[in-house]
Every structure is written in C-alpha cells, then in structure tokens.
C-alpha cells in the first residue's frame, strides 16, 4: 500500500468545476471505460446536460494487443449521438502513459470526424509516453511506475481510489 492519500470525492468536486469550464454549447461527454464512464455518468447528471453521455473502450485499438491479447469483460463503445462535427470531451479517471487516450481517439474516429476532442481527468499521475495532455486534471501527482492506481465506485455511487504496489 502507499502513503498516498487521495480523496476521490473531493477531487470529483474539483473535476465538476473544471469540466463546467470546458463545456461548449454542443459538447458531449464521453467516458473512457470503465472508471471514466462512471465519472461521465455522474458529471452528466450533476451538470444537468441534455441527452446521454457516451462510453468508449480502448480494447480494439490497444497497442499492447500483441503481448496482452484482447481484454476480457470490457464494455463495447456506445456513442448514442452523431460524432461528426460534435465537440467531444473525453473523461477518464487516471492519465498515465497516454496510450489509452491514443487508442480511444482512434476508436472515436471510427465513428466520424468530431469538431474537437479535449480531455479531463481526475488524476494526472505523470509518466507520459506520448504527446497527450489533459485540458483539466483535478490532481497532479507523481507515482512510481509500477504502482497501480484505479478508481473504485462504491454501491452508493461514491468514488474512492484503490492503490496497489506493483510487482
């Protein structure tokens, strides 16, 4: 375990404010499966946005497919709106290497040409391996590369973080 003490609920409140500042008139929220999808669902409700948010999976565009194979249990991408000419705000829990975001941008383009794509995350933990940056991150931290950080959603819908030492 780590001595890191991340309050996911407090960071969510910050993210809510940050995302509000990024919204354009027709912006649609798209959560990256799975943690980002939970965030997008709650943001959609708390911001009172019309329509449905989207959920996007990186599974079909991952660059580690050759070594890790196809992930089991990932929900398929669900974008209940026309991607063409729509401003998209991607939402994810943790931004690390940037590879997941690269994959989901490719996935997004399989559905059309968005007007713009931006990214908001709960935690930017550094360690980038691609030129990808979030337009808003509620927290910036530095973690050892092997350590794992992921969002957990409790039964009552509230968020917490699961931090595990890597091997």
């Amino acid at each position, binding site marked *: 375990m780590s001595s890191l003490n991340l309050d996911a609920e407090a960071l969510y409140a910050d993210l809510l404010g940050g995302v509000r500042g990024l919204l354009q008139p027709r912006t649609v929220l798209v959560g990256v499966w799975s943690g980002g999808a939970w965030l997008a669902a709650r943001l959609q409700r708390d911001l009172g946005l019309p329509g449905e948010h989207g959920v996007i*999976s990186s*599974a*079909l*565009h991952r660059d580690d*497919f*050759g070594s*890790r*194979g*196809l992930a*089991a*249990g*990932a929900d*398929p*991408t*669900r974008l209940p709106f026309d991607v063409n000419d729509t401003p998209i705000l991607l939402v994810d829990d943790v931004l690390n290497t940037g590879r997941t975001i690269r994959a989901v941008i*490719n996935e997004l*383009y*399989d*559905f*059309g040409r968005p007007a713009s794509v931006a990214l908001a995350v709960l935690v930017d933990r550094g360690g980038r391996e691609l030129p990808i940056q979030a337009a808003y991150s509620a927290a910036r931290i530095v973690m050892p590369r092997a350590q794992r950080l992921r969002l957990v959603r409790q039964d009552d819908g509230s968020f917490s973080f699961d931090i595990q030492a890597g091997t």
Partner: protein
Amino acid sequence: MPARQNPQLNSHGELIHLLSIEGLPLPVLQHILDTAGTFLSVNDREVKKVPLLRGKSVFNLFFENSTRTRTTFEIAAKRLSADVINLDIARSSTAKGESLLDTIANLSAMHADMFVVRHGESGAPYLIAQHCAPHVHVVNAGDGRHAHPTQGLLDMYTIRHFKQDFTRLTVAVVGDIVHSRVARSDIHALTTLGVPEIRAVGPKTLVPGDLREMGVRVCHDMTEGIRGADVIIMLRLQNERMSGAMLPSASEFAKTYGLTPEKLALAAPGAIVMHPGPINRGVEIHSSVADGQQSVILPQVTFGIAVRMAVMSIIAGNSA
C-alpha cells in the same frame, strides 16, 4: 481436461487454436460470445474495420469447397485488418501429391500467421496445429464429421441473443445428425453452457444411439422431438455425404422430418428456428418456415462474422 493436454489452450488456459468445442472450458466459451458482441457493433460504425490483426496474414486453406464459410472467414479477417490469402488447395498442391504437412511448411515459409482450415478428414486441423510454428494459430473451419466449432459458436451466440438464459431451454437438433459436424459442435457447446434438455431428432439411420451417453435425448418421432422446444436447429440433408440407402428418399424424409408450419406449432410459443445453411427448401425446411417470423437463419449469418472476428482476435492475442 487439464490445460496442458488440450492443444487448443496454452499453459495459462488461454485459447491459442480453435479446433473443437469439446474440451473448451465455460469461461473461454463465454469470453468468445462476449467478445463477439463487441464486434457486432463494428458494423454500425462509419469505419467497419478495426486494426487488431494489422500486419498479420490469414491463410484460408479449404481442402473441401465451401464458398459461404470461406467468405465469412474472409470478411471477418478483413474487418480485423488482416491480409487474407485464399488457397484453393483442393485443386492445387494436394492434386500434385504434396502431403498436408509439406503444404503447411511451405505456407509457413510465406510467413502465415493463421490458418483457417477446412478438411474432409477428421483431425486434420489438429495435425496442423501440432506441427506449425509456435506463433501460428489454427482455426478449424470444419473437419470431416468431427467438428465445426465456429458454426457451433455462432449458433450459441444466436441462441443467447434471442433467448438469453441457456439454463432453462429445450433445444432440438433435427435431421441428419450422423453426418453433421455442426450437430456435434452444437451438442458439446449446449452441454457446456448448461442447457438442461438437448434432443436429437431424426430417423434411426441418421441419429447415432451413442448420443445418449452425452446426455442427449434421442427422438425418432418428430412430434415428440419438437414438442415444447424453445430452439429448433434444422440440419441440412447432406446429399453429397449420403452413401448407401440410409434414407428411402428426400421426399420421404421431408414428409416425416421436414419442418412445416404445422409441426412448428408444436414447439414452445416464441420458439426460434435455426439452420446452418445452405437450406434445402421443401426438404428439411418448408419455405414458409424458413422465411417466417420465427426463423433466425439470416441473423445467424450476420452473427457468424462477429463470432469469427472474436475467435481470430482472441487466439491471435495469445501466445503458445
């Protein structure tokens, strides 16, 4: 069956070849069906292609002709961005006397990553899987009377799509079961997925009695066989496989075992009718049933592409 003894699985229990549904653990079967669901939605995109097999070469080796199965494998591989090479083996190397393993060795030297194999001899895909390089994957597209696992899987996907829960179903497989690798694959899959009642329906000459040992109820009476069934899988009467007098005639078979609207009325309300194709209208299935509201024959074809995409992408992502 322990993972190491099953040539389809690696030491982690992951699928590396698809040779038969027999011996596939339930989680592997469910993973294939779940993944197929993901690929089905690829059809709704502007770009109907994903890059999972980009840079890989898939060789379709059909030692027996089958335009339909070969085409669906070709579409599936192309939607995964693979390069697809179709070899009409039946008319080339083997005709010149080359052995199966020599053919495989030559094609491996052309940097094949996956072989999709249809062969008249049961077990041919196993032989290839045992002798190909560790990075090469094999999919059985039908071997003799033995197995046709992707057809079995697409049938399971179809049943799950329309009926959801396998554990409450009665499934009748009707027709020429003795010659049918589809029936064999279906029965293994239905058993693994927990279907409580599987019936094999047909004349004594076409329904092997040893099916009872697999927990299958054998019915030689059509009325008894389809009464109350939730799913009816009609098999094609395989004229080209018939040798000797196993049947008086096709019309005699049609009269007794052909699925007519009257016989379908005996099945459970909302029962679905399946058929692996190509259908013999007026023989094993009446036209009005094949085209009727309870027929899911065309959805089977659509699901078949997604299921083959799932199988190819899963095995390509696992190493020996």
